């Protein structure tokens, strides 16, 4: 048994490679040869991990993958436990369908990161594409749990149709964030794009870096939401999320929406340090 199982991409890929299911929880009980024999897909052709990666280590709850994985789909998809560290960028559907554990990408990822995620933590140090934490095509629900923390910016339709869970973004969030949210939370320190929270039922959008609140949301009050304080404190302590005291202590304006039933969603807009807040 070693400290970690490591996969090193040997050469540039000729086509799209899907490594969904190559997860730390699968590698924890497997030998080096068994890990190398795990199935992957190059286009529509079935292949093995060992065809593309050099495998080192065995039977460890920590999996490390290095190389330029920008054309690799499903990095960490389906992870249920353990840790996956990705040293480099990753392609589409990173961390999709996770139910537990940690997937930490030291780079940017493409679209559909954390798609249909149900648990665990997906940490992305770079940027993420469209539909972070959203639903698989045709599904009625997006992510149903877990936490997606992005230190860069994200594209359109973040947390669309989310049922539970968190998408926390240091940078900007693209348009249509929280579209059709059932519940869950989108938090952004950067600006949030057009038409946020359309069709939102009970979800929360926390905007610390600017947002155009749709007319279908009605203002409620200004206050210091205790759950935002808790959330920011937790993110800062666990991930070094750069939320300073002015956000944690801050006053937020609460808007309720989206119009229609049940209309119990909310947009919380940071308006200043709570101890010096304007009325």
């Amino acid at each position, binding site marked *: 048994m070693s400290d970690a199982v490591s996969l090193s991409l040997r050469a540039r890929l000729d086509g799209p490679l899907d490594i969904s299911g190559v997860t730390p929880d699968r590698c924890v009980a497997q030998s080096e040869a068994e890990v190398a024999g795990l199935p992957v897909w190059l286009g529509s052709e079935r292949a093995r991990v060992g065809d593309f990666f050099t495998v080192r280590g065995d039977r460890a709850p920590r999996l490390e993958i290095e190389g330029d994985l920008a054309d690799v789909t499903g990095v960490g998809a389906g992870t249920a436990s353990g840790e996956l560290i990705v040293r480099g960028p990753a392609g589409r559907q990173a961390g999709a369908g996770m139910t537990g554990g940690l997937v930490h990408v030291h780079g940017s990822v493409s679209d559909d990161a954390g798609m249909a995620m149900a648990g665990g933590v997906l940490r992305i140090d770079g940027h993420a594409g469209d539909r972070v934490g959203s639903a698989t095509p045709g599904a009625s629900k997006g992510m149903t749990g877990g936490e997606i923390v992005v230190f860069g910016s994200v594209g359109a339709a973040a947390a669309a149709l989310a049922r539970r*869970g968190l998408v926390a973004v240091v940078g900007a969030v693209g348009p249509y964030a929280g579209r059709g949210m059932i519940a869950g939370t989108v938090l952004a320190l950067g600006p949030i794009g057009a038409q946020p929270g359309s069709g939102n039922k009970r979800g929360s959008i926390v905007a610390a870096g600017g947002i155009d609140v749709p007319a279908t949301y009605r203002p409620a009050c200004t206050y*210091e939401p*205790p759950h935002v*304080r808790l959330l920011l404190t937790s993110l800062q302590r666990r991930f070094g999320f750069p939320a300073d005291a002015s956000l944690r202590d801050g006053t937020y304006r609460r808007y309720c929406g989206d119009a229609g039933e049940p209309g*119990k969603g909310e947009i919380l807009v940071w308006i200043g340090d709570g101890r010096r807040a304007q009325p």
Partner: protein
Amino acid sequence: MEIRGVHIEDTFAEAFGMRAARVIVTARTIRWARAAALKLTGFATSVIACKCEAAIERELTPDETPDARPGVAALIFTMDSDSLGKRLTERIGQTVLTCPTASCFDGLPDAPDRLPAARALRTFGDRFQISKVVDGQRYWRVPVMEGECLLQESFGMQKKGVGGGNFLILAEDIDSALAAAEAAVDAIDGTPGVILPFPGGVVRSGSKVGARGYKGMIASTNDAYCPTLRPLTASALPDGVNAVLELVLDGLSPAAISAAMRAGIDAACRPGVRAISAGNYGGKLGPHHFHLRQIMGPAT
């Protein structure tokens, strides 16, 4: 054994297994955290009549609390798991939910046994309440007139808590007894995992099991340690003792009780105190025996 001229009797404190929870109350200022915690732990000196024993463990800095606000940690002890859940629900609902800016968190996050004590309180929100999950723990946002009250849903339960650690300060007069008791309380104050549930940490009405004169009494005055009854009963008081005060300790572990007793007894050994003793029932009722001379022996 003597410590600074105070005789340490060769006896032991007999204590019982209890269930325990640690509740962290935070608020916008320490004033309001204290206010909520004082009410949370009010009227909780003894399970005999209060259904639980509770007190403030210590104050917490913002670095130590889940939401980075000033806070207070309180410990609550009961005799069984069901009762602990009920007491938490009642007390959090009536004291934290009601207190301006206060929030409530679990202080035993690693305890595998969980009590969903605040789940019932969500219904105060009349379906306007909102659930949020942070780091795997569920919280309830209950709308109130100043904003929202945030309550963690479940609380860890320590099944191996200990209730009824104690020692008796046998003094020449009430002034000496009070001074020694206050010094002991100060020495114990802030010990992790330990509370002193009685007023000011001290009890004057030490009890024995049952009663001589009244059937059905669970407990009655400990006449052997009442100086006014010296000629009327089998007194346990040495000559010259005219006032006795007791410190009762509840803790999350036997080790925590031992450490606190050692600190408290040492502080209580001061002028005007003749002896330190302890209350027990012959060793037949409680599984935890804290022998004074072992506790006050050389540190290991």
